[in-house]
């Protein structure tokens, strides 16, 4: 089944996203890592839809929603990063640990 290969790719993408999110220091890169994960989800949805062939093409519809929301989230994310950059002159996520013990 070809769907398995799609799924493997999606899983790899997702894992890359997780890795990126965990290790990249620059906030923008973190944001991109999230995008990667969301796109892995999209790939997943489309791949499943290609097998399932639901009457309403649910997988594709779902994917479109995800894309839309992802765009919105990136918008929010960039806004926040911009805000922080203005205040701190840095987009490095390490710099944010004011509220510790």
């Amino acid at each position: 089944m070809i769907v398995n290969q799609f799924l493997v790719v999606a899983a790899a993408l997702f894992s890359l996203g997780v890795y990126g999110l965990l290790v990249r220091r620059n906030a923008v890169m973190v944001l991109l890592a999230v995008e990667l994960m969301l796109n892995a989800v999209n790939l997943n949805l489309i791949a499943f839809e290609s097998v399932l062939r639901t009457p309403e093409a649910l997988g594709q519809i779902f994917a479109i929603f995800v894309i839309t929301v992802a765009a919105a989230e990136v918008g929010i994310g960039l806004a926040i990063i911009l805000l922080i950059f203005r205040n701190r002159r840095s987009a490095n996520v390490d710099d944010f640990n004011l509220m510790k013990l």
Partner: protein
Amino acid sequence: MNPLVLAAEEGAEHAVELAAGGAATQWAGLMLVSPFVAFLLIIWLGKNMKYKGGEFAVAAMGLNLVIATILFFQNAQGGILNDTHIFEIGRIGLFEGRDLVFELGWMVDGLSIMMYWVVAFVGLLVFIYALGYMHGDVRVTMFFASFSLFAGAMLILVGAPNLIQLIIGWEGVGLASYLLIGHYWEDLDNVRSGNKAFLTNKVADVGLILGAIFLGMGIGDFRFTHINEAAAAGEAGLQTVAVAGALLMFLGAMGKSAQFPLHIWLPDAMAGPTPVSALMHAATMVTAGVYLMARLFPVYQYMAGEAEILGGIITVRGLMVGIGAITLLAMGLLALVANDLKKVLAYSTVSQLGYMMTAVAAGGYTAGLFHLFTHAFFKALLFLGAGSVIHAVHSNNMTDMGGLRKDMPHTFRTFIIGSLALAGIIPLAGFWSKDEILATLDYEGYTFVFWVAVAGAFVTAFYMTRAIALTFFGTYKGHGHPHESPTIMTGPLWVLAVPSVIAGFLNVPGLEFGSFHNFTTWLAARVVPLGDHHPEAPDWGLAAIGLGAAVLGIALGWLVFGRDADTQEARDRLEIPVLYPLLRAKYFMDHIAWAIVGFTMGPAARAMNWVNTYILDGIVNGVGAITMALGRFVYGGVDQRGIDGFFNGVAMASDAAGSAMRKLQTGRVQQYAAGFMVGALVLVAAVAIFR
């Protein structure tokens, strides 16, 4: 109809043979109440009266004496068999038809009437005496209030128709005793004496209370009549509880009647004012133990007496007789070396109580009680006499006295009468009662104890002679010039001297006073027949032995102390090696007692406190502290940082991933994300593992 009868009829269903004795028995309840009324009046009004409230106390006792005398004569004429007035104060339904009833009331039978009369008679005289003795003392009001409290409690005790009321009265007299011993409480020594008396008695009271529970719960009733009937009926099933109850009761009696080794409180109790010693620690309160034995006589006689205990070494009766015998001799010896006049009398009292206890235990119901009866008069007389002396010389110590016979003629004469009665010189009261005890011991076959009692008689005579010699003969060694006491004090002495002389004739075997019969008959007026032995005629042979011992004692005493009572040598003659130090140290009983208390209670108390503070509280605080520490660990070590730690561990385990994973430690947000992922992975892994 009077209110007391109405009250009695409330509980009529529980009353036994109501009102057989007529009006006087119904009014007898007043005796139990009047001292309490006096108590309240003294507290309320006493302060501003001439005798600081003593008037009320005397009046109450006067009333009691009237009632007691009427009862006494009615009983003497055979008018009263047994009359119990009870009203219920509490009831617990045990089982249907077998309610556990608590009652207060009064019992009118031969035994209680005798006690009523003794308490009222001696009490009244001592109260009157105290009006003079305590004049101008501190807290006279409080003194008379406590005195009245004592009288009331004592009457409640002797009038008790059941064990519960007996306990109330019993502890009540204990309380009064505590208050009066500690009358001069500014001096902590007196307070300690009071504590000692209370606590020693309290130890014994454990016996009384447990004994009451055994008998009451075992037999199913706390009423003496029922207990005694059950004992007389001799149900085999009751044997165990009867023996246990009897022994425990005896423990209680030992405390109150100062039997060896629980006698230690009584000599110290002399710290109270002398009238207190006279009434409570000689004539009445300390006889409560003997009274209790007599009240429960059937239990010992029919059920418990012959039971073997301690693995068959000894019978219950044997134990009791033995303790009585030890007490009568050992305590008598202590009186030999005491320098405090009151302590001499105190030890004498303990010794005489030993006689009574021995007699009652051996089966001499009448003998023991008769000695109680006569002893009350002459011992009260002696104490009051001693009080009179002390009042005059302001010291208890015989080394501060001497030669008082000229200065205090009345005191001297009455003291001599009392001493002779105590020593058992014919025909004074003590002779007859002691003779009856000797006869009983002889009849019951306690030969050894008989000779112990004879030795005791010798010792009694000896120490009394010594006391008289040191106090009234020789030269005065104290300060100032002693004066005879006022009439209000000497009057009671003379009044008491009368029964000290003649009371013995009331129970000379074979002698009856017409319709008045004699002491034996009076006491026999009770529900359960006793079956004790009554000799038909005096046994003059035994009497001679007793009398001989007494005379010998007096003679020897006079020999040693009489002529040169003042000199040091006179006293030194007594200093027999070993025995003298032993006696001076009071057989080390106080030391032993304190050692026991000191070595157990003190450390135990501290240990408990330590356990509380460091173990139990320690656990509690420890749980608290551990929780807080756990909080610190969870928050600081796991929640805020633990992912580092987790990944450090992972990194060490896996070199390949190491370098990459270590980067995880860089940012806090990413730590969180890592924690997040770990959680997700664990959940996923759980699915993998458990499915």
